[in-house]
């Protein structure tokens, strides 16, 4: 999903005073940068973003910021070059006290019991995608497989056509990637999304189905139906948050297995390792970096945070902190103690975490059942997404049993 028109950013000279999460070296491999910062400047700063941006690399400070809604507001959840007018998408952009009811009304739809019911559909759609790959000797595991799974499942949940995936992915690319440097693309994309959902709402009229749009149309918050802006904001959130995040998690897991044959063979041979392996992939390749805005001056980790500053809230960096995770930069697929923060910490814990885990688990299980042997294609150029969500957007692999390759 390259736009081809991304503005270039000057190269970073010093990550501590001039960090840029859009820099090609960060996008390619951010982990050495975070390790360096953790050692010499655990809270970095950058003037490349309006009102300045802060970036904490240690688990302790990330946790402190995530828990502190008094000083750090969720009204901006993406660090952008220029601040755009805030676009409420409750509950992710909500602070207390509005946050609690906006979240509570959604929780039952994403609770473990509700999500478990989606497993047959998830498994069937993974198999459909694998059938389409068929007996090909090569494929792009991100393009042909990972990207379709969350799109189709969230479409299924919302009750909209599963074939509208290209449309959804384009909006997400504009809002989460292009928009970080070119804010003019954001509002039109959000308006298109709202128009799309208005059409779906009109289609339903007074009829209700077993889908999330119907659920939200009937939902009451403190006794009142949701306002249109609240309803549309939440629907946009469910679409944006549920797609490239999990697509990235599935893709990064497959990237790991394609490049670590010993882990791949071990996992294929012993499926009982799967739950621990999925948690470890979530820790090591956590796709989602959130943001906050400083609303009251404070100090965290000995560093002053000035009002209006943007904060890059990197759960992926926290997950690589050796103070909390021994051998943090090693992927240990049977890591038993793994208090990772891939789904955030505190009141904004990812609403879709049970869905994401189901999708990742089913996607990897089904892939390994069909292709226990696979590796990166010779000279493959793996490309990673930029910004808020990190995962492989192109992942060319060679499929099959090694001795059949010749």
């Amino acid at each position, binding site marked *: 999903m390259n736009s081809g028109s991304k503005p270039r950013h000057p190269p970073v000279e010093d990550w501590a005073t001039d960090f840029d999460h859009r820099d090609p070296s960060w996008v390619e491999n951010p982990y050495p940068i975070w390790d360096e910062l953790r050692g010499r400047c655990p809270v970095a700063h950058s003037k490349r973003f309006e009102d300045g941006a802060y970036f904490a690399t240690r688990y302790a400070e990330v946790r402190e910021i995530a828990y502190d809604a008094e000083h750090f507001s969720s009204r901006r959840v993406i660090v952008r070059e220029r601040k755009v007018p805030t676009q409420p998408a409750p509950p992710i952009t909500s602070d207390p006290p509005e946050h609690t009811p906006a979240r509570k009304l959604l929780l039952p739809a994403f609770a473990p019991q509700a999500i478990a019911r989606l497993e047959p559909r998830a498994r069937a759609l993974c198999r459909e995608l694998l059938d389409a790959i068929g007996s090909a000797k090569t494929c792009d595991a991100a393009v042909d497989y990972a990207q379709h799974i969350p799109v189709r499942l969230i479409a299924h949940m919302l009750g909209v056509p599963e074939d509208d995936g290209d449309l959804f992915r384009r909006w997400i690319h504009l809002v989460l990637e292009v928009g970080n440097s070119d804010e003019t693309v954001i509002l039109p994309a959000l308006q298109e999304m709202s128009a799309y959902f208005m059409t779906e709402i009109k289609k339903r009229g007074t009829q209700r189905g077993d889908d999330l749009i119907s659920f939200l149309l009937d939902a009451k918050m403190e006794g009142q139906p949701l306002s249109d802006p609240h309803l549309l904001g939440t629907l946009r959130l469910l679409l944006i948050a549920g797609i490239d995040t999990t697509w990235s998690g599935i893709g990064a897991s497959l990237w790991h297995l394609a490049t670590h044959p010993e882990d791949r063979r071990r996992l294929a041979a012993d499926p009982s390792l799967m739950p621990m392996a999925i948690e470890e992939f979530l820790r090591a390749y956590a796709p989602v970096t959130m943001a906050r805005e400083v609303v009251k001056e404070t100090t965290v980790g000995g560093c002053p945070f000035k009002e209006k500053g943007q904060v890059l809230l990197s759960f992926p960096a926290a997950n690589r902190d050796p103070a909390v995770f021994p051998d943090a930069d090693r992927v240990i697929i049977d890591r038993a103690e*793994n208090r990772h923060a891939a789904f955030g910490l505190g009141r904004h814990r990812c609403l879709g975490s049970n869905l994401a885990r189901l999708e990742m688990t089913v996607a990897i299980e089904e892939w390994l059942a069909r292709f226990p042997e696979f590796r990166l294609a010779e000279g493959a150029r793996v490309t990673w997404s930029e910004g808020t969500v990190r995962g492989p957007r192109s992942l060319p692999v060679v499929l099959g049993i090694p001795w059949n390759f010749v």
Partner: protein
Amino acid sequence: MGTSKVIRVRVDSARCQGHNRCCSIAPELFEADELGNAHARGDGLVPTGLEAKAKLAVANCPEHAVRLTHE
């Protein structure tokens, strides 16, 4: 272990944010409510043989909401 000790698990509902890690690791000991937040099954008593799972549930809770008590 000599004298037998009663071990119980408890979920601090003020801290639990519904990560569901304890329920996945030890479904014998924890269950989720309709919002996805966890609580201990029954009176939280950890039967013999499940002590290791109980400890793992504690060690994997991102919110430090799961506790063990020894009586």
